[in-house]
């Protein structure tokens, strides 16, 4: 056990170092500064609800940016390792592959934590700290969940373009699946139309398999300064359950990958 820990930690540390060398944190800082400027500009032209507008806009933008940049980093870093034959070298050693996987995942988790923390710190300017704390934890959960999805997609498709497209499609669908379900069963639906019935069944089926990301990290928490730990319980539970599933998918493909 004493031997296992350092390997996982070492891979995690190298993943963080790679993020720093990729200028990920520098890009993040630049976006935060730009976001700050944009928020000041929006605040200057708002007639009322200035802080709510600034917090809401910043929150929605930073959420999308943090999730996107971390997923992009996960995919780009793994493809680079694959092309540099580093993964093959590691897999040729007598080490269980799950330690490599968890080392990478821990590294991505740390990168996600740093990115979420920086975003949360900026939002402290426009929303009360208890709400920002919950929002930051929710963003961290969302980013970690999406990192596990990105890893699973990458191990499945093994190329940047298909993996990135699959992650983007997954994210958009997971964020809109609740609304799609409500629309599919809403008053506009024609129950006599077979095409609409099939579409509603497909959407229902997808909803069973997707995490409900619309309930994660809502800007409404920042705008209305209303959020409690009870709001976070769904986020934590869904992150745990879905990450477990994605870890299973990722490890399954990793173990089947040839040297």
């Amino acid at each position: 056990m004493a031997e296992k820990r350092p390997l996982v930690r070492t891979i995690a540390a190298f993943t963080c170092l790679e993020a720093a060398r990729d200028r990920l944190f520098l890009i993040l800082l630049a976006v935060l500064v730009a976001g700050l400027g944009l928020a000041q500009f929006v605040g200057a032209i708002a007639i009322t609800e200035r802080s709510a507008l600034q917090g809401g806009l910043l929150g929605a933008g930073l959420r999308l940016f943090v999730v996107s940049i971390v997923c992009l980093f996960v995919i780009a870093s793994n493809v680079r390792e694959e092309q540099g034959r580093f993964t093959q070298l590691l897999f040729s050693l007598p080490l269980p592959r799950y330690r490599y996987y968890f080392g990478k995942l821990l590294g991505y988790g740390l990168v996600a934590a740093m990115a979420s923390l920086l975003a949360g710190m900026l939002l402290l300017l426009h929303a009360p700290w208890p709400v920002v704390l919950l929002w930051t934890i929710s963003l961290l959960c969302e980013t970690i969940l999406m990192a596990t999805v990105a890893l699973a997609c990458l191990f499945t498709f093994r190329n940047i373009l298909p993996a990135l497209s699959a992650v983007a499609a997954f994210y958009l669908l997971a964020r809109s699946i609740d609304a799609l379900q409500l629309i599919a069963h809403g008053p506009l639906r024609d129950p006599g139309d077979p095409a609409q019935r099939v579409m509603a069944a497909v959407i229902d089926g997808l909803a069973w398999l997707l995490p409900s990301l619309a309930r994660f990290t809502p800007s409404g928490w920042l705008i209305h300064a209303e959020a409690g730990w009870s709001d976070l319980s769904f986020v934590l539970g869904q992150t745990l359950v879905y990450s477990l599933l994605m870890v299973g998918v990722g490890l399954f493909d990793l173990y089947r990958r040839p040297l």
Partner: protein
Amino acid sequence: MSRGGGERSLASVPPALRWLLPAALVLQLSWHARHPLPAPQARELPPPPPPALLHLAAFGEEPVLARVLMLWLQFFDNQPGISLPFRTLDYHRLRQWLELILQLDPRSHYPLLAAIRLYALVPDPQRQRVMVDFVRREFPRDPARRWQWMAHAVFVARHRIGDLKLALALARELRLHTRPGEAPDWARQMEIFILADMGELEAAKVLLGGLLESGAVTDPGELEFLRHLLERLEERGRP
């Protein structure tokens, strides 16, 4: 999971992992079953943002943004899971949105059409008046392009709200703000018919006579129709 060639056999996957995957899937399905969709909640129409912000957000594509916003506004009454009747909408806020969208693209007919042909269908005179007033305020900014919505506003005031004075005022503004040729004659002559409806026969006769004498009407059929109308008004005016 990948199905490409050159993969290692399933035996290379540790047994614990082979169990983990279906177990995690069952866990996700049961999680979904335990957390039903939140009940749909009707949202109020939000206040429109400052015009400067929208111009900035348009990235120079104001006409596109105007149409996208118009679609969003048009379907606001059909929110996910629920359908809201028009009478539940805040019409003053709705008007602000329509004004803002028209400001983004002043050549668009969409906000004016939606106001008078969609939102003015609500069976509530107060709300209908808000939409008629919106068209009335916007019409003089581009009468040659917007006369048809003003003509429709006259119809709404006359037949839906039943306010003849308002209809007359609108018809008069329609005539005064347009030159012959900018709007069809029937639209510019609406004032005469409303005056006749109101029993203001003398005023209608003066207006009609003036129109005939001005030579603005040249079509023989239309001239005949207007002369016949003038005769009928004179007959109605005799004791």
